[in-house]
């Protein structure tokens, strides 16, 4: 065995040390999965072994769970359905054998144990965890479109009851050691470093080699589905899951099915049921897409997959942020957290101080949650300097401007800031719409001028969109990426163009809502269908959030820029009337498609007078069609961006779409959506929508070519990479 070391001590206690060679973290690789049954067999059959302690040989943690790379590569689902079940059962069967081997087995959890890692320990009779606030215990599989498939759905539920287990598994939240003890997930929290000792002590003290659920008197905490109290967990639980998931995530439903069916039968049958639902889930396009985009691709981008290799690594130590509004202050905050000295500049001291006050507020939150010590808090707060004085810029590795979306103002701050910069320092513009090449005209060093587009609220949004101007150099790109990685956000790199990648594609979602409004769809129908696609909000309410007057401004600017080529969007007049005649600017003045004077907001009653409602009944078929329409509109735009060269990496396109504008995460992203559907089917549907709703749905030639050749984006991309 290469992953496990077994040492039997004088008391006959086998210390099983889990240590995957050549990896910084233990995961359940194909090789580990193959060895677990051998470990169990040895414990069971070796008469010299009286009991066993399972621990990790890594300092990084106990085990981070299944190896999703291996999983995506078909570790379980490579062969027939029966093969997949058998492969899935291998782990569950072995863990069941472990907990029924007749010898006491304890887990000495000396680091984080997530997913399959925690499930390994749940199959032990006793769990000891080190008292280290950094240790997290949890079952986060749902975040990548899966659910626990190593007995977790059955063992956690039997330990803590349906409600607590479903909350932990359906939200994927982790527990700190003491919380895990409080919840009944682990038995003992001991000083870090003494886990093995404590686990052995439990065995020597006569630890019982039986799981609670194998005891005749066992009763499920809180009751099962047809228990008078337990029934509520399912009645309400089913509803909560639909509320959260809109029925878009097979994992969520299959998790509940595994729990519902599993708790009604003995453990062996329960584990078979879990394995079946797990394999079924793993084989869904949603799980495949989510594992790839939300885990594998995101991880690759986080590690600098798109960084130019030949530029030496840089480490930004001082960064200046111009403009101390919400955006600028948010950037200053994430800088501070990353240990970057930050200068926050605004036109007057009051505005600069207001920005810093926002940083303080965010830091205080962390302090109150115990995520920062007072000393660290003081140091971080002191690392942000609020000023009006451009002299403070001196020595900055990077300047990020986050001033008004106005070319003159941006040009002015660019010139003033560059005057203070040393060669090699980068100037980044946090514009969301203005083309970088144009803004770079104000720069005397356009090769160091780059777009660094953050999303609001900066502290919560994980993506940063890097935009290359026509003259931006590879060194500036590398430095911008080093900065984004330092503040622990996920970067994507796109080429310049109106709205770049994210704003441009997101805009189509909002605009399509307007088209629906003009077609007579009831406003509630439009926004609810939007949410049902998996977007965080409907297109009309999003429009209110973005501000209607801003969209009028952008439209006017676009018209000016494009001249005769400008085609007004359907429904555009509605917004113009609302802004110019009725003073409805959106959420910011409390009046938009919604009225905001009460909570919750209500649809503006006058809207139906402005646009008569003719479609006020729905059928599931119509809803599906309109959901698809909203997704298609965005996906067609993404394909166009690809054709125009705005993006060229499917990982960036998918991860960017999900993290930037909340594109339906269950799809794995727009490129995965097209690939899974197949270019041919996608083109046919897009053509049908174009005939019905307009040319904006017409698929680009690229997709027709791909359809003709049976290509996929990911196939082309890996092909191109291999050729290079």
């Amino acid at each position: 065995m290469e992953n496990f070391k077994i040492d039997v001590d004088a008391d006959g206690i086998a210390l099983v040390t889990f240590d995957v060679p050549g990896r910084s973290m233990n995961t359940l690789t194909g090789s580990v999965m193959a060895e677990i049954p051998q470990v169990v067999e040895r414990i069971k059959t070796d008469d010299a072994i009286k009991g066993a302690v399972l621990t990790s040989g890594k300092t990084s943690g106990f085990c981070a769970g299944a190896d999703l790379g291996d999983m995506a590569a078909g570790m379980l689902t490579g062969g027939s359905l029966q093969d997949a079940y058998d492969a899935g059962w291998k782990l569950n069967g072995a863990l069941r054998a472990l907990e029924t081997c007749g010898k006491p087995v304890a887990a000495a959890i000396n680091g984080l144990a997530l997913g399959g890692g925690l499930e390994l320990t749940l199959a032990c009779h006793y769990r000891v965890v080190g008292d280290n606030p950094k240790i997290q215990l949890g079952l986060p599989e749902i975040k990548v479109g899966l659910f626990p498939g190593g007995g977790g759905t059955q063992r956690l539920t039997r330990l803590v009851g349906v409600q607590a287990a479903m909350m932990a598994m359906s939200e994927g939240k982790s527990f700190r050691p003491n919380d895990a003890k409080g919840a009944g997930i682990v038995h003992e929290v001991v000083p870090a470093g003494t886990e093995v000792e404590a686990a052995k002590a439990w065995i020597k003290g006569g630890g019982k080699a039986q799981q609670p659920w194998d005891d005749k008197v066992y009763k499920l905490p809180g009751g099962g589905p047809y228990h008078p109290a337990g029934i509520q967990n399912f009645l309400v639980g089913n509803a909560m899951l639909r509320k959260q998931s809109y029925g878009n995530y097979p994992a969520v439903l299959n998790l509940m099915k595994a729990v519902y069916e599993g708790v009604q039968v003995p453990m062996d049958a329960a584990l078979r049921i879990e394995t079946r639902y797990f394999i079924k889930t793993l084989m869904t396009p949603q799980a495949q897409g989510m594992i790839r985009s939300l885990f594998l691709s995101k991880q690759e981008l986080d590690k600098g997959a798109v960084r130019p290799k030949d530029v030496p690594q840089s480490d930004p130590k001082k960064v200046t942020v111009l403009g101390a509004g919400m955006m600028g202050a948010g950037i200053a905050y994430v800088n501070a957290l990353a240990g970057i000295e930050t200068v926050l500049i605004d036109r007057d001291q009051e505005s600069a101080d207001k920005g810093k006050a926002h940083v303080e507020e965010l830091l205080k939150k962390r302090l109150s949650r115990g995520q920062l010590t007072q000393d660290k808090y003081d140091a971080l707060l002191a690392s942000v300097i609020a000023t009006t004085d451009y002299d403070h810029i001196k020595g900055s590795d990077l300047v990020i401007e986050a001033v008004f979306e106005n070319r003159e103002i941006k040009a002015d701050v660019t010139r003033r800031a560059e005057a203070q910069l040393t060669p090699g320092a980068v100037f980044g513009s946090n514009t969301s719409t203005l083309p970088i090449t144009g803004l770079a005209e104000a720069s005397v060093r356009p090769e160091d001028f780059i777009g660094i587009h953050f999303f609001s609220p900066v502290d919560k949004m994980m993506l940063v969109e890097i935009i290359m101007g026509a003259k931006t150099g590879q060194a500036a790109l590398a430095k911008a990426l080093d900065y984004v990685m330092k503040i622990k956000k996920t970067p994507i790199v796109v080429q310049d163009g109106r709205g770049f990648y994210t704003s441009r594609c997101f805009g189509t979602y909002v605009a399509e809502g307007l088209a629906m409004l003009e077609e007579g769809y009831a406003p509630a129908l439009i926004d609810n269908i939007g949410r049902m696609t998996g977007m965080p909000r409907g297109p009309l309410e999003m429009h209110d959030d973005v501000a209607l007057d801003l969209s009028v401004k952008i439209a006017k600017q676009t018209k000016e820029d494009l001249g005769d080529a400008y085609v007004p969007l359907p429904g555009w007049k509605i917004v113009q009337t609302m802004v110019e005649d009725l003073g409805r600017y959106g959420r910011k003045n409390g009046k938009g498609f919604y009225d905001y004077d009460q909570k919750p907001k209500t649809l503006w009653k006058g809207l139906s007078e402005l646009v008569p409602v003719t479609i006020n009944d729905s059928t599931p078929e119509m809803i599906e069609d309109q959901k698809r329409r909203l997704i298609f509109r965005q996906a067609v735009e993404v394909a166009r961006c690809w054709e125009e060269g705005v993006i060229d990496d499917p990982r960036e396109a998918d991860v960017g779409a999900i993290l930037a504008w909340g594109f339906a995460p269950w799809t794995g992203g727009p490129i995965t959506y097209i690939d899974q559907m197949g270019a041919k089917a996608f083109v046919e549907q897009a053509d049908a929508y174009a005939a019905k709703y307009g040319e904006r749905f017409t698929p680009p030639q690229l997709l027709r070519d791909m359809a003709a050749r049976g290509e996929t984006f990911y196939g082309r991309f890996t092909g191109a990479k291999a050729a290079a």
Partner: protein
Amino acid sequence: MTDAYIYDAVRTPRGKGKKDGSLHEITALSLATQVLENLRDRNGLDTSKVDDVILGCVSPVGEQGADIARTAVLNSGWAQTVAGVQINRFCASGLEAVNMAAAKVKSGEADFAVGGGVEAMSRVPMGSDGGAWPVDPSSAFPTYFVPQGVSADMIASKWGFSRDDVDAYAVESHKRSAKSWAEGRFNKSVVPVKDQLGLTILDHDETIRPNTDMQTLGALNPSFAMMGEMAFDAVIHQRYPEVERVNHVHTPGNSSGIVDGSAGVLIGSLEAGKALGLKPRAKIRGAASIGSEPSIMLTGPEFVANKLLGKLGMSTSDIDLWELNEAFAAVVLRFMQALDIPHDQINVCGGAIAMGHPLGATGAMITGVVLDELERSDKETALITLCIGGGMGTATVIERV
């Protein structure tokens, strides 16, 4: 095919379905037994001529379990040759029992059959029998399950019935029920319930509040708001996204009451009746059931009424009186709106909002109510229907002979 006729209909009064209700100390078996005893005794019925007793019961567990129909047959001293079967079509069980009894007669399987029902809701609470639909995610999830009250609130929201609309309907239900009692309209069918000594323990429907008005009803809190906000509004919203918000208008005051009660309808062929010297009161023209969208659940009556009228070659104008169980006020208001039925032709003697809805028995009870009313007001034809859990509707058309 043989025609099926109604010879008699009896029902117990409805007792408040709580621990302080008058019938709480009377078993479900006793309620069903007393109905059968009365049917026999007031008709001088030779029970050996009856083939089957079909009783609806929605929570057939505990004392209502294990085929309470057969137990009641034996307990009431009916001939042991009379078979018994308990059925469950949720709220329409009592009417379905009538329809099945009629079908048995029509097909020639039975000469006489009883269709009825029993539900002692104070003793065997609603939901006691479990059931996969709302609990098993495999069925709850794809059908957008929500509790009935949330469905009823969605009906009100989607078709525009305000809190005042539903409350006004409820006020009228109490008025009509009280007036019907005052005028003795129910005397023919209601048989007092006797206690263990044989003394009368209840002789009238217990939950009518004749003085109910908009003020008292308006003061009640919506019953399903909390449940809705917790998660169920979001669920039904995903099925009806055209509605901006679920308006929770239903309260205990404008929804059917929880009560205890039992009823039975004696059905037989013309020949069988003649042989026993019994006089038929009405002919069963036809019956139908239908499935409808399960999340909104309670719109089935509209569809089943149309289906049945179509089958019988009738139109809404051929129906003199409509009887739709008042499960929730909005259910009736939506039915009236959809089929364009004036309020003075439907539930003219009041209904379950005032008098209560003993789930398994109600269909048989309202069959008796509307038959009595046809005779009293000298009208010919009535359509009886109920909305049903799971999204169904059952309906029956009767015609006086």
